[in-house]
């Protein structure tokens, strides 16, 4: 406890920062790299040599290189100062995949060279940041388990120009990514949802089962639903409308999977949802304490997967970006 208290004095601003954020030189740390230290040792050697032989040209070169080292330090800070991180975004990933955090970064005044973005211990992304246009930078972080993944603080660093100094900034940016369970093929007992009674009363929803009518094509309709037969007869493009009876749709439930292990169960359900989605089926999901009505499409898929991801975890839905 005591230790963390002391640390707070050294790193007083650990609270997360709001985007957009502009790097201020006061928050930039700078230290020589290993090569930089070696170079400084070489310079000291050169200086001693020049003193010993009182060689003025030796002095000249030593001071030139020394001054250049100093200037390069200023350049390193300058290279970092004023970078604007405009926004961040991310898309859900499956567990054990790398979560990709997208940052939009913008440089004012001048171009920035070889800026590295990374999360602690993760792969670096090194990019130049062009002047006055927003650069789009993907920073990777490996995920381990489903749920809400928050990477550590973002580290922006640079060794530019001469590699003798490393300037860096630690930014506690609040980012989080939904991590879906890792899909796992397994036995699924797909029960038809019989709770809604007989067919006549079944709610009609846009589905895949029965052909209902042709509708003039609108941009955005799925291609496989276009009535090419009608088109070939010289008619306009028409979209085939199907209806599915709600009662005949598939419903995934907690009991669909035999396995007792919760995580395994969720993984198999994830796999099931992906499969159902690929088959363009109408499906619903029932979990203990969570019920998602039948539907189809991308948004629906993500809703179901999110429910699986967050299942039995402390509810932090509001925080998910």
């Amino acid at each position, binding site marked *: 406890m005591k230790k963390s208290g002391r640390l707070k004095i050294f790193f007083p601003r650990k609270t997360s920062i709001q985007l957009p954020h502009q790097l201020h030189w006061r928050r930039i740390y700078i230290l020589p790299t290993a090569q930089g230290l070696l170079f400084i040792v070489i310079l000291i050697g050169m200086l001693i040599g020049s003193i010993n032989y009182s060689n003025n040209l030796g002095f000249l070169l030593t001071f*030139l*290189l020394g001054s250049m080292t*100093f200037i390069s330090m200023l350049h390193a800070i300058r290279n970092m100062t004023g970078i604007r991180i405009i926004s961040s975004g991310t898309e859900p990933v499956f567990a054990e995949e790398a979560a990709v955090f997208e940052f939009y970064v913008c440089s004012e005044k001048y171009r920035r060279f070889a800026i590295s973005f990374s999360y602690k211990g993760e792969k670096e992304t090194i990019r130049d940041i062009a002047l006055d246009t927003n650069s789009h930078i993907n920073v990777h972080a490996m995920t381990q388990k489903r749920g809400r993944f928050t990477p550590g603080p973002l580290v922006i660093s640079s060794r530019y120009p001469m590699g003798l100094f490393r300037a860096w900034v630690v930014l506690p940016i609040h980012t989080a990514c939904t991590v879906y369970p890792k899909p796992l093929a397994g036995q699924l007992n797909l029960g038809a949802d019989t709770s809604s009674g007989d067919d006549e009363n079944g709610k009609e929803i846009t589905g895949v089962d029965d052909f209902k009518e042709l509708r003039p094509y609108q941009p955005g309709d799925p291609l496989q639903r276009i009535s090419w037969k009608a088109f070939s007869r010289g008619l306009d493009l028409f979209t085939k409308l199907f209806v599915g009876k709600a009662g005949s749709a598939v419903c995934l439930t907690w009991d669909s999977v035999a396995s007792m292990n919760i995580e395994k169960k969720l993984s198999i359900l994830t796999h099931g949802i992906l499969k159902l989605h690929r088959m363009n089926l109408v499906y619903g999901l029932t979990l203990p304490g969570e019920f998602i009505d039948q539907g189809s499409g991308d948004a629906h898929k993500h809703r179901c997967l999110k429910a699986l991801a967050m299942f039995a975890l402390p509810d932090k839905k509001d925080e998910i970006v």
Partner: protein
Amino acid sequence: MKSFDKNMVPMIGALVIAIAPQIPHLKPWIVGWCILLWGYMLMAVKYGWAGPGRITRFILTVAGFFGVAISYGKIIGGGSFVGLLAIMAGLKPLETKTHRDQMITAFIAYFIVITSLFESETLAITLYMFFSVFVTTGVLIHVNHPSGRLKESAKQSAKILLQAIPLMLLLFFLFPRIQGSLWGFARQHTATTGFNDSLNMGDISKLVQNNENAFRAEFSGDLPKPETRYWRGIVLWRCEGARWHVGIRAPQLQVPISGAQPYEYSVILEPHNKKWLFALDLPANEPGQSQLLDDYSLRLRYELRHKQRFYLKSYTSYNTGKLKPWERIALKLPAQGNKKARELAHTWASESRSEARTDEQIVETALNYFKENNFIYTLNPPLLGSNPIDDFLFNKKQGFCEHFASAFAFLMRAAGIPARVIGGYLGGKTNPYGNYILVRQSDAHVWVEVWLKGKGWTRVDPTYAVAPSRIEQGMEMAVPADELPDFLSSGQRGVFITFREQIRNRWEAINAQWDSFFIGYSSDDQKSFLSRFGIHLETLKGKIKSLLAVLSLVILSGILLSAGLFSKTRASRKDPIQRIYLKFCSKLAKAGFPRRADQGPRDYAAEIGRKERRLKERVDEIMDVYIILRYTRRGNDKILNKFGLLVNRFHPGK
């Protein structure tokens, strides 16, 4: 693998450029080694060959080090250091896959650059040094900028280099210098030309074949007349027949000569690895770490390894007074040999005694002897026999200045007149573009000083008797044209030649400037430079002061530089309206009303009006002016001035 390919060519380029000036100093096999290895790596990059493995590299490294050890005889010290560096430079590109290796390659290039500065100290090599540093830095930047283009890296390198120059100059002039070396050891130079402790017949005629510079003398006032440009260096006391030797070390001078109108000048002496210091006849002060001896020669306390500047004062007319007891050795001759010469001298002496003539007349007689007996001044004198003075005086009668001088001094001593041989330089070249005299090895000369009653030591140049043009016009005129070394023979003086001459003069003048500012910069210069600012290095307080001055100047320049580097955007510099507006906003922010970045001027003004009624009127007025300037067509310079005034006078705190 990709960065390996991309950086290979620039890296090898930097090494080649760094090592080029060293090539004449390297063993041929090392040059071959570098060419072979680099060539291989370039081919490997071009054709996608795999680089050599670890074992191959290890074997090559060991082989290279052994090669250096064998060919230089030792692994530490001397030229072997440069050899080792070159071996490493050859090897390093073989293992440059990692970023670290590539950086170390650049460091090696920097290191090679500094070694070449220890070989030569000319302006040309200095300019080359900047070029080489520029290239190597460009490569270093390139290595650290994986996606960059070489052109960008070069630009950045030039930028950093130029920005570093003021700081470099500051450090150069203010960094405390010490005299001599830290540990006393200094690297021995490879053969240099110049005078030795002794003088043999033929030494000088060999020396004048050399075109190297000996020193440069800069005068603040008028130059001395050509016939008085005798640059005194070595006094030779001991006569060993044809050979003359320094003999003894004269005691330190007690009372320096004085007189009217001294010449004050500085000599920038090329390193000669000896302790001689050449000065205009006769010097009267002890510059730097030197001693003025009783025979009026200046002796350094250390061997001169690097170009250095000495501030000197000399009188060309003087009287050294009585012959000191220890100077009686100026009458000694070897016990035997050169009988005929001794006899000749004795006859002169007895004649003069019988006719009650003065010593001056004996000197006159001797000079007349040279004049009247068809002596020939030549660069290629014939070899002399076992009694060389006799052989020269009575048979061959052909010689160079050292022949005349040593024979003359021999005759004088035999006649009972104290005489010593002086080694130094005569004349030198003036340059229309600078107030200095450039003295080269080819100006080397030997003459004689005799002691005469009432006059003291007096300079006598027997060469003058034979070839007066040597003194009056220089060697080119005195020696037959076909004997002259190439660089001295003028040939036909065409327009082209004079043009070339002009260019050479200019280049030499620039070099002279360079030498006196940088190369010759010594602790003396530093002292006088700093004392102009009231800092006296002799005292501890002065030392602390100078340290503080260095620190504060470095910090100041750092601040100035960063101010330049982090200056406001070009856009805002171009846009005075926005600059003033931002000033206005920051004034308000300090008063507790910061503007949100997305807040327009009206909203901002309204917000301040709500929060602080007292400011409302003034803020509204300024904001209206701002809106007119920035968002309407009606803005003009007059309104802009008004805006600036309003903002300047605006003090929300009060």
